[in-house]
């Protein structure tokens, strides 16, 4: 009798769990899994958006390896990812630590650094297009005024500086996001830990490297994943500033995907690019979790 009752309660719990899970699951399947599968299906066909779809097996994927446009866009994306990780995360971490330690103006500077994050990449892109403009923009004028005319460039036309100029707004814009995440995590660390370190005579650098980084390691991993996946799906800044050009010299994979799909109406190849982006993001996440797996520091 008792066993039957336990079974019934278990069953009811399971039904309730599924009932609560189903709406979310349905939305996820409908809006994430479904489009992903459809996108993968499109990547093995030739389709211009109308008319019949012709099965071409792996032709679109093989083209990824021979298309100079894709190869350039791929490396641009890798460069953006590298630069974002190298600049955004350390800068955000340092800023968060400095804000945490400061006694004055914390709220003001936190808001100031976070402000660009809430502005649309489109608006930031427009702003930097004007900023970089050699005829109307501010950057070259400022360089002139500072006696640094030798550094003046055609920022969006010169292939030597073009990609860096297009990356810069994005790298700058999202430092605030990572800073806020690190700052919030820092606030969860008990104050006594820092006080003990202080009493033991630890310097600021020692506190940062020996305490802050190990204690925030779990959070840093999350921001790293956010930074990498954010870079992989970056689109707004280059699209507004250069449309990925001249040619594809400032194009990321997403920009190329958009051009191929919507300007050239080659949905098959565009979907192969999309699949490549998804695979890269998944691979990175899995490999990264394995490589960085270590015991988190408890406090």
């Amino acid at each position, binding site marked *: 009798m008792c066993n039957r009752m336990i079974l019934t309660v278990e069953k009811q719990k399971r039904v309730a769990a599924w009932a609560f899970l189903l709406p979310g699951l349905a939305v996820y399947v409908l809006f994430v899994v479904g489009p992903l599968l459809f996108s993968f299906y499109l990547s093995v066909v030739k389709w211009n958006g109308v008319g019949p779809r012709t099965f071409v097996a792996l032709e679109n994927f093989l083209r990824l390896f021979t298309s100079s446009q894709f190869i350039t866009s791929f490396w641009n994306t890798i460069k953006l990812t590298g630069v974002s990780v190298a600049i955004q995360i350390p800068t955000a971490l340092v800023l968060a630590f400095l804000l945490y330690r400061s006694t004055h103006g914390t709220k003001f500077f936190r808001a100031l650094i976070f402000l660009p994050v809430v502005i649309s990449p489109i608006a930031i892109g427009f702003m930097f297009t004007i900023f970089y403009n050699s005829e*109307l923009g501010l950057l070259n004028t400022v360089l002139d005024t500072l006696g640094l005319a030798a550094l003046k460039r055609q920022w*969006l036309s*010169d292939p030597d500086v*073009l990609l860096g100029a297009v990356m810069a707004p994005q790298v700058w814009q999202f430092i605030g996001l990572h800073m806020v995440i690190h700052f919030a995590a820092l606030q969860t660390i008990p104050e006594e830990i820092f006080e003990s370190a202080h009493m033991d005579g630890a310097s600021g650098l020692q506190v940062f490297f020996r305490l802050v980084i190990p204690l925030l390691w779990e959070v840093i991993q999350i921001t790293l994943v956010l930074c990498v996946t954010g870079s992989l799906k970056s689109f707004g800044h280059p699209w507004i500033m*250069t449309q990925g*050009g*001249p040619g594809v010299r400032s194009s990321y994979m997403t920009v190329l995907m*958009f051009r191929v799909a919507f300007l*050239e109406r080659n949905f098959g190849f565009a979907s192969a690019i999309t699949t490549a982006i998804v695979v890269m993001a998944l691979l990175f996440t899995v490999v990264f979790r394995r490589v960085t797996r270590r015991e988190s520091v408890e406090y």
Partner: protein
Amino acid sequence: MKRSIVTIGTILLVLGSAFAGGSGEQQSGVATLRFATTWGAADSKGTYFIPMLEAYRAENADSVNLVVEEYGSDDMVTKITVELASGELPDIFSYWGGIQRLGPLVEGDALLDMNEYFAVTSVVSREDFTQAGINHFTIDGTLRGIPMEANVAAFVCNREMFEQFGLDFPATYEDMLEVGRVFRENGIIPFAMASNGGNPSHFWFSEMYKQFPGGLEEIRDLPNSRRFATENALRVAQIIDEMRRNEMLPADTVSNGAWGPAFALYNEGRAAMIYTYPWMLGSMDQQMQDKSVVIDVPELPGATESPASFISGFATFGFVVNRASFEDPAKREALISFMDFMISDEMFNELMQGGLIPTKAYDMPVDAFNDVMQQTLRHYQDRPQTTSHFWQMHDPAVANAFKAALDELYAGIITPEDFVDQVQTAFDESDM
């Protein structure tokens, strides 16, 4: 447990009914029409067009719920591409003629044969429109849209700047280089021509091309010959490269490319000359119009076709109608009424103020055009219209390769030879 299941059920029901109610929105007797247009805030015609639409909406509120969606040009192409693929096209939308843009819509059997509209409307007939306009919207022998806007390119000079330095307007390319040198020395951009997304550079490329031997014919025959890599193409690319090296163009050709930025350089008095089209001229400041002079395109060395003997012009824009919407009895009358309104004389009169050259033959008030437009029309009147490479590239992949290569050529990243090769390769790889 029972209560939670009931709660979940209620939530699902509410959600279900919300989704069910979302699509219809059809009040009794009021047809909802979705109209997508590029003639909004980003276009000089928007100032006149949007108030007309609002007035129409107010006057016909009891029969039509007009939903207006405004997009930039590139966004419009994206939107229509997506909505065609998903079967969600607007009921009626502004669009370009020509097979490159209309081809997919025709292939998807999405467009109304406009003869069906002309058969039922009582206010207009297809004979009221210019033959060039009708031809531009005729695909495979069927009229797929109604042309509204014709265009003519204009080469415009800032008279005040030329007078300031005692210069004559350039009649030849050599003159252009000479005045350009003087302007550069005085901190003025000689020629507001650059390239971002191939704009506005692709029209300028064709403009020069037509002056060379057989150029007009080569462009006209491009869809059949698929031969872009000609001696003329290389020659034009070399001239562009030479203009760049002689600092005739803005230094940063990407950030000063695209229609708006290039036009802004002239309109703000930073550049002395510009080659542009009515959709930009319509928004020229009055002060700048007063000092602007329309001239012939300078003659290039080796030209066999005088630039004074033709103009670059075409019917570009009009509107098309979703066939399924027209066949929907609930929308048909509302659509016909709205189409009548769109091509009414009153509408054209308003749009002319924003720079639109009507494709409709009627007693138009020419003084509705702004000064520089009137000057443009007077200067180039009675010359035969000629087309350009872009409109002859039926495969959008080729057209985009052409535009992308132009961006690189203007930025000095590729050589004229590479430019020609790149575009020809796109032609060779195209299966259209």
